[in-house]
């Protein structure tokens, strides 16, 4: 019998598994893939603060490039630059005793690294394993049916942790309605490219013309590469992300800069600009990370929120089980309460701001609002900068 069965070894699941193992729980972490992180659906930007908060350091194994700030552009190319090398030159930079603000990570390496740490902390890890269903047992634990390399098997666990991402099936097993509304999932496509110069800044391009209901980005990707992508809200445009990305490359104020680019990788997916799930627990079950929609509804960023949500889940569950309490729906509500207190209430507030902007039907004033909120969001004075 395991204390925790964690489904999905991304940043949320592996962090839950690692910290729960460190705190003495018996943990099984499963993932359906043979290699983690791919296919990549994410640009990979994460703040240094987010890593520190869960006891991680920026290892060369997964860091692709150091980041020192942001440039936010409006549709015409006017920009607000927030470069911490200039704002706080004593703290941020490349010199001795200075540090980057954040990193662009390789999700394949990052996710593998997080899984490795979970294994080193004592968690058991099974790859090529998926779970088609669960049932609750009379003793208060649950039984989960798994398939591992085509073999069917059953595992008993006290708590099932669904960390299976946006496509989460685990919550659905318990009858929860976990799908994301079409208008709250940005449809995204990005190219990793050669031949586009960057300067240690995350560049974000707003404006309905380029990315209706979303934004475009140019991020440094290490080795002189960059990633160029965008996300659109499909209820605000008739064209798909691919068509919008083509237009952004060929017609935007960056068209000369993009002229000689060579495409090295094509990636994409849904980026949630969504509210957290209202109910993230059931009997013997909690959801964490993207599966619980622990995401930033303005930026769509989800690594930081996944890491911190995993830590909250691991602490809560180890305390609950140490007290000998049953992981009933009633008792697991405490996990969500704690998450709301530490993170979620801020995220709900951000979601409120995002919704207000997206409800504005006037495109040019909506564009202006989006530019303002993005520029304010990353400023050193933002109340949200640590989410």
């Amino acid at each position, binding site marked *: 019998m395991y204390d925790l069965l964690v489904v999905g070894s991304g940043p949320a699941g592996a962090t839950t598994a690692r910290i729960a193992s460190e705190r003495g729980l018996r943990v099984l972490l499963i993932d359906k893939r043979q290699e983690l992180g791919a296919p990549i659906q994410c640009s990979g930007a994460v703040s240094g603060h987010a890593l520190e908060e869960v006891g991680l350091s920026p290892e060369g194994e997964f860091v692709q490039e150091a980041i020192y700030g942001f440039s936010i552009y409006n549709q015409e190319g006017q920009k607000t630059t927030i470069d911490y090398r200039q704002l706080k030159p004593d703290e941020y930079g490349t010199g001795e005793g200075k540090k980057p603000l954040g990193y662009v990570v390789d999700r394949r390496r990052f996710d593998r690294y997080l899984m490795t740490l979970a294994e080193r902390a004592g968690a058991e890890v099974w790859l090529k394993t998926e779970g088609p269903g669960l049932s609750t047992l009379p003793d208060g634990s649950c039984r989960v049916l798994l398939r591992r390399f085509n073999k069917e098997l059953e595992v008993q666990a006290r708590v099932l942790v669904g960390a299976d991402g946006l496509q989460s099936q685990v919550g659905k097993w318990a009858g929860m309605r976990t799908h994301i509304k079409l208008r709250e*999932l940005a449809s995204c496509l990005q190219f990793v490219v050669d031949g586009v110069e960057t300067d240690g800044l995350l560049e974000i391009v707003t404006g309905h013309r380029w990315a209706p209901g979303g934004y475009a980005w140019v991020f440094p990707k290490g080795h002189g590469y960059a990633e160029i992508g965008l996300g659109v809200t499909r209820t605000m445009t008739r064209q798909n992300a*691919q068509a919008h990305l083509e237009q952004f490359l060929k017609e935007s104020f960056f068209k000369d800069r993009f002229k000689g680019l060579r495409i090295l990788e094509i990636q994409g997916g849904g980026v949630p600009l969504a509210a957290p799930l209202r109910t993230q627990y059931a009997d013997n079950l909690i959801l964490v990370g993207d599966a619980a929609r622990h995401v930033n509804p303005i930026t769509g960023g989800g690594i930081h929120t996944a890491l911190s949500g995993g830590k909250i889940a691991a602490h809560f569950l180890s305390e609950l089980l140490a007290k000998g309490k049953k992981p009933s729906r009633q008792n697991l509500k405490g996990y969500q309460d704690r998450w709301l207190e530490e993170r979620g209430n801020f995220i709900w507030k951000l979601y409120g701001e995002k919704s207000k902007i997206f409800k504005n039907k006037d495109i040019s004033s909506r564009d202006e609002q989006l530019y303002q909120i993005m520029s304010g969001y990353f400023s050193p004075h933002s109340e949200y900068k640590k989410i």
Partner: protein
Amino acid sequence: MSKKEPVLFRIGWNACINCGACVAVCPQEAGFISPFDTIAVDTPCDIACMACEEICPVTTITHYLHEIDAA
């Protein structure tokens, strides 16, 4: 609201980037998925909301009416 005509989805695998966005917006119950991180292709869908087709970044999901083609 009257129930919609059930549809079957077809995926152009050549363009599919296996991103799973179609599954993320799908209101079907657990298991309406393919082994390639997409919505199910062999099971009729009676919700027929087409959110999966809309969200697809490369527009590679289409559908056909279950009855007509199955008859």
